[in-house]
């Protein structure tokens, strides 16, 4: 009996798709759940911190998607074996916790020689770990070849520790608080506002009672614009409706010359926005 070509074609199409489906079943099957924010108690032990940190590093933190532990040779990202001890000597002036904190919150600040920058900022989307989750990750990192000193009470430059550097950690009183303070100062919107030359054109001091503010004063910009709008005007002065095109170009050129577009990091610009948006009266 001769099988009609149409039947052969259907059988071929089904067989080919079935074969590829089979190949799809033969590879490892892993369902990746959407990560959820972990509620971490403040009074957990160091061992518990390490456990949670390890789970986060392997899971929602996706650290181990890129980093390896205990591998050598031509690696794409630094191996984390021994990071617990190595961290303290990476950058002069930063202790182990400070270095790890900086690596996670501001990864491009220091890139290990021989590797490319590219690590995401861990407390921002898409990874978006909370400050507490990051503390547990630091505990886990410290446990890789070292002894964890971080606790759930540890304060540092990025979680409200202010200019005092790291506190609450066993080695916080050691080397580096001055460096951490410098780091914090570097992120201060006030100093950035001045260092990028914004203060040369814009005043931020509220005018005295009855007096008009000087031209281009930004003393009340926080009451007029929200964060997004302030950011938009910095990123592109064309967004300022009161400026003519030529004025906008002048402003852009001045900001470019001051390094706002070429040198400033997004975090620095955000710090300036935060500073400008802060209420300072003087209506």
């Amino acid at each position, binding site marked *: 009996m001769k099988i009609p*070509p*149409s039947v*052969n*074609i259907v059988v*071929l*199409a*089904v067989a*080919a*798709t*079935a074969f*590829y*489906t089979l*190949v*799809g*079943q*033969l*590879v*490892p*099957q*892993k*369902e*990746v*759940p*959407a*990560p959820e924010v972990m509620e971490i108690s403040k009074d957990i032990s160091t061992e518990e911190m390490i456990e949670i940190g390890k789970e986060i590093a392997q899971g929602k933190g*996706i650290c181990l*998607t*890129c980093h390896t532990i205990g591998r050598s040779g*031509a*690696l*794409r990202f630094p191996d984390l074996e021994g990071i617990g001890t190595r961290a303290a000597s990476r950058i002069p002036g930063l202790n182990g916790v400070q270095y790890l904190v900086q690596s996670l919150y501001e990864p491009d600040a220091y890139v290990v020689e*021989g*590797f*490319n920058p*590219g*690590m*995401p900022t861990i407390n*921002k*989307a*898409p*990874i978006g770990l909370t400050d507490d989750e990051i503390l547990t990750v630091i505990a886990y990192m410290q446990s890789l070849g070292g002894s964890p000193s971080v606790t759930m009470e540890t304060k540092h430059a990025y979680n409200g520790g202010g200019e005092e550097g790291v506190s609450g950690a066993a080695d916080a009183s050691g080397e580096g608080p001055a460096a951490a303070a410098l780091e914090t100062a570097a992120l201060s919107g006030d100093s950035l506002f001045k260092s990028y030359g914004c203060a040369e054109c814009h005043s931020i001091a509220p005018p005295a009672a009855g007096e*008009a*503010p000087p031209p281009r004063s930004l003393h009340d910009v926080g009451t*007029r*614009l*929200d964060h*997004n*709008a302030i*950011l*938009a*005007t910095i*990123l*592109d002065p064309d*967004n*300022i*409706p*009161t400026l003519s095109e030529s004025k906008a170009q002048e402003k852009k050129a001045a900001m470019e010359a001051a390094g706002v577009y070429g040198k400033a990091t997004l975090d620095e610009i955000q710090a300036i926005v935060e500073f400008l948006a802060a209420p300072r009266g003087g209506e």
Partner: protein
Amino acid sequence: MSKRKLLLLSVCVAAVIMVLVVAGTKVLVVFENAYRTPVETVQLDRTPAMQGEADALAAAAEEQRTRPLEELGVPLKDVEYRAFPVIGSRVAVWSIAQLHLLFAAFVLAVPIFALIIEFIGYVTKDKRYDELAYEFTKLLSVSFSLTAALGAALTFALIILYPRFTDYLMHVFSLTFLPYALLFFAEAGFLYTYYYGWGKFSPKVHLALGIGLNLVGTAIMLIANAWLTFMTTPRGVSEAGALISTWDAVNNYMWMPINIHRFIANVAFGGSIAAAYAAFKFLHADSEEERAHYDWMGYVGNFIAIVAFLPLPFAGYYLAAEIYAFSQTMGLTMMGGAFSWLFIIQAVLIGCLFIGANLYLWLGMGRIEGAQRYRGYIKYLLVVIALCFAVWATPRSPITTPAEMREMGGSFHPILGKLGVMSAKNTAVNLLILTTFLSFIIYRRSGLTPVVSWAKTGKAAQLLVFIAVAGYVTYLGILGYFVDTTVRIGLSVPQVLSVLFALFSVTVIDIFLFRGARTIGETRWGTMPAISQYILIFIAVTFTWLMALMGYVRSGLRQHWHVYGVIRDTSPDAFTPTLGFATKVVSVNVLVFFGLIGFVFWLASLSGKKDWEDPEGSVS
């Protein structure tokens, strides 16, 4: 002025007007009528109060422009998600989108090569090319309707099942919708005029219509690509998702790589489907003449598919490089994380495509007298292809039991693990491309003997290029094991460039080498064995499956984000499914697509059938 020239002029003018209308819409309708503070014509000395008032107005306008919709008080949908019965919302949208994209790819691709074939027919005055181009175009009209219907279904599905997210996308891309709609009307106009106007206009006018059709089709693709690439590599919005620049949102990291990749892939895919149509007709042909025609059509369709397929991996490199540039995390998730095993499946598919394409060429040599002299080389080509395929499909970490892992001393096999890295895989795929190209070169010269005086030198030069490039690619592949990561990543660029150089230089030499060549054996069209036609169908199924799979990874890379890092997916489907599940969905979609495309083939074949006659012969 003659009637023909007048018509040609009218078409050109209409095309220019169409482009101006679309481009002008943005400026005249959208920008000009957008709310903004009136422009002052007279500069006044402002009092502080006036300045404050102006500042407040400006700030309010700016605030309106940059804030997310919900902050503006625009009521976003109260319902964030709705459930689709049985298969769930994600699979429903996934399937509709995939079918829409497959048909859209076909509808965009066929006019590209129909136009090229028509042009060849126009230049060579060979009517066969014109007829072939028309036959390809016959497949378009029903496919276009199906594409539009599926596009509408996708829009409804998104609005109903993902209302809040769809609102957000509409907010970001509102400026693009009107041009898109206008272009869609233009596409319909050009397409139906091109199809129904076949033979009704002068060739130049008809070719101009084809150009218009392709330009508009490409513009539609560019806009739609902006929407989907924005979801994976968003740009032009603030961290909170507020729109800062529509152009930046359009021109995001993945946009241009996807445009290029899709354009090439569409041509390859369209060629393979058209070849499958020819195979279908060949297998059902009643006469030798018909078989010869469809054998030739299948050959042309497959030729187009393979020619477009060869540079596709290079476009893929560019796309992957841009994904890495946007986010190394996303790049690593793709190649080394949740999706790494998907690329092993991809390797199997591409390996099957290469083997199928080569097999078809080798079988095709059987219908050319004089090809016997090259038969002996086929086994060597087969060995190279099999080896490259094996390397490409070797995973970095094989699936092992704990005991086997202990024996290996880790998750990587001590020897085979070395073949699982990109240095080996890049080398394998580049050699696969070179070998397939060599197969084609051999096929092309099967029935010909060059008559130019420098024939021997030319052949030697071609051989030298092949050997030198294959050697260089292999050397760079081995070098990759001994250098730093920063150097290793860059090695793929000279590999790609050297292979491109080989493709280009050998082709150029070949064109001049066989100019006026003596024919030593005719091609006996229609004498291909039936199995060759099933290979064409197999290639089409594999292409479709591959496109569907890569569509999944492109979209799946976002994982639990609707817009990566900006709009989180909080639906019950926010998890990333297993590859086994994904491949099942892909298979079902592919089979549904082939069911629908079979319907298109059947409809297209109706035009050649006899008119219905009353069996009783009554005339009343």
